[in-house]
């Protein structure tokens, strides 16, 4: 089940079906709560051409929103991308990137 499907399934739960006291019996459910809509003004955009896969952005991101995806790109075997469903647009990744591969762009700009 994808994240989206599982969340919408759970949203059908009625009060009598839910575990009492808001107890969560499965770990890692926070990822299903998509908080990317809290982002204001700008979002980070990673230029895959410039990116050297140093993963400094992955380390500094306070919201665990930098993803390492198994997509090969030129000489690299993975690509580093932003999880816009959780990124809050703080810009720390862009400020810390040693090769200026991350640009903070307008929210309306379409991500390729």
């Amino acid at each position, binding site marked *: 089940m994808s994240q989206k499907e599982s969340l919408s399934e759970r949203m059908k739960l009625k009060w009598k079906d839910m575990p009492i006291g*808001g107890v969560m*019996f499965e770990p890692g459910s926070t990822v299903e709560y998509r908080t990317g809509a809290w982002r204001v003004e700008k979002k980070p955009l990673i230029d895959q051409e410039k990116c050297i896969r140093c993963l400094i952005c992955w380390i500094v991101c306070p919201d665990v929103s930098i993803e390492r995806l198994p997509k090969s790109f030129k000489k690299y075997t993975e690509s580093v991308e932003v999880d816009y469903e959780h990124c809050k647009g703080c810009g720390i990744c862009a400020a810390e990137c040693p090769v200026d591969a991350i640009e903070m762009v307008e929210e309306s700009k379409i991500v390729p």
Partner: protein
Amino acid sequence: MYRKKGEFTAEGIIPYSGEGDTVTITGAAVCTQVGCAYTGDEAVAYAAKQSDVDVVAAYPITPQTIIVERFSEYVANGEVDTKFMAVESEHSAMSACVGSSLAGARVFTSTASQGLALMHEALYLASGLRSPIVMAVVNRALSAPINIHGDHSDMMGSRDCGWIQIYAENAQEAYDCTIQAFKIAEDTRVQLPVSVNLDGFFVSHATESMKVISDEAVTQFLPPRKPLFKVDPTEPISVGGMLLPEYYYEVKRQQEEALRLSKPVVSSIGKEYGELTGRRYGLMETYGLEDADAAIIALGSTCGTVRSVAKQLRAKGKKVGAIKLWVYRPFPIEEFLSSVEDLKALTVLDRAISFGAPYGALCSDIASALQNTGSDLKILNMIYGLGGRDIPTSTIEQVFENTLETAKTRKVSERIKFLDVRE
């Protein structure tokens, strides 16, 4: 995990049938009991000891101090196998209780007045996280002006915290209710915290003749807690997660239902306790209502005075009665309504002011319970005994006379009357 309605039949109203004025004896006891002299506080501490609690986290405050003091003596003497946490405030006390309870422990604490007020936010954590904690609240006035004596301002200030709230009339009831409270709270159909209220000084510090049951009988009545779920590293769960608009409302709806459905559990446990000890409990107790025109309803120690005066007046041929609510939350609406069907006038005694409200808290509940029932019961509300001011039998007698007068004339002149305040 969620229990449905209608699993029990309610037997909440218990007619008073005792001979004495303080101890309710309704049947023969089947367990060994020992007569003793305890103050209300000592009785509660002894009940907690016999209930074999795993954790006590508490902070002393007058007039509850003796409970914590006695219990810490039990711990120091090795008489109990309890982790005693001497915390630095009541806020920490309740927080530690919530954590321990979620880890599966049987938890006890106690507080009063400012201590309960300081706990306020953690009270909601306990009920929201469905932690079956038992807390003795030794009711005391709230500051300012500072005062250490008994009234109900403290618990009434936190009455919407989602706890089951039981009021004990005397040391015997404080003892009995504390033992029952663990069984009620930990019942997986309930799984809610319970406060056992006893009036500061009137009950907490007065030594009374009472009976305690044997340790074996308590263990038989109250087996070790079997939690529905617990925080356990071998089987991880998350508790206290953030539930935003998508889920919060449903969880609160569950909580309200659990509190309402705890009524039959309270009744059946009260009955079971009665079969064991001969002292029967339930949601409320009535006296003389079979033919009464006028009655008084109250909480806590005052109920004894009211019943005593009612008895004297009935001996003189006056048709008066008395109602004692053991369980204030969940409010026994149906049971209350059926008990007052033939009554003409009822005085509600409130030992706390609900500032700016139409009535005191208890009277507001009663007035709203009567709403839309077609009842023409006349309601008088009287505030009394704030900051530990005594309520003598002469005042209660006057209240009965006023209530009888209202039953006859059908007229209520004042919305709220302040009894025995210097005008």
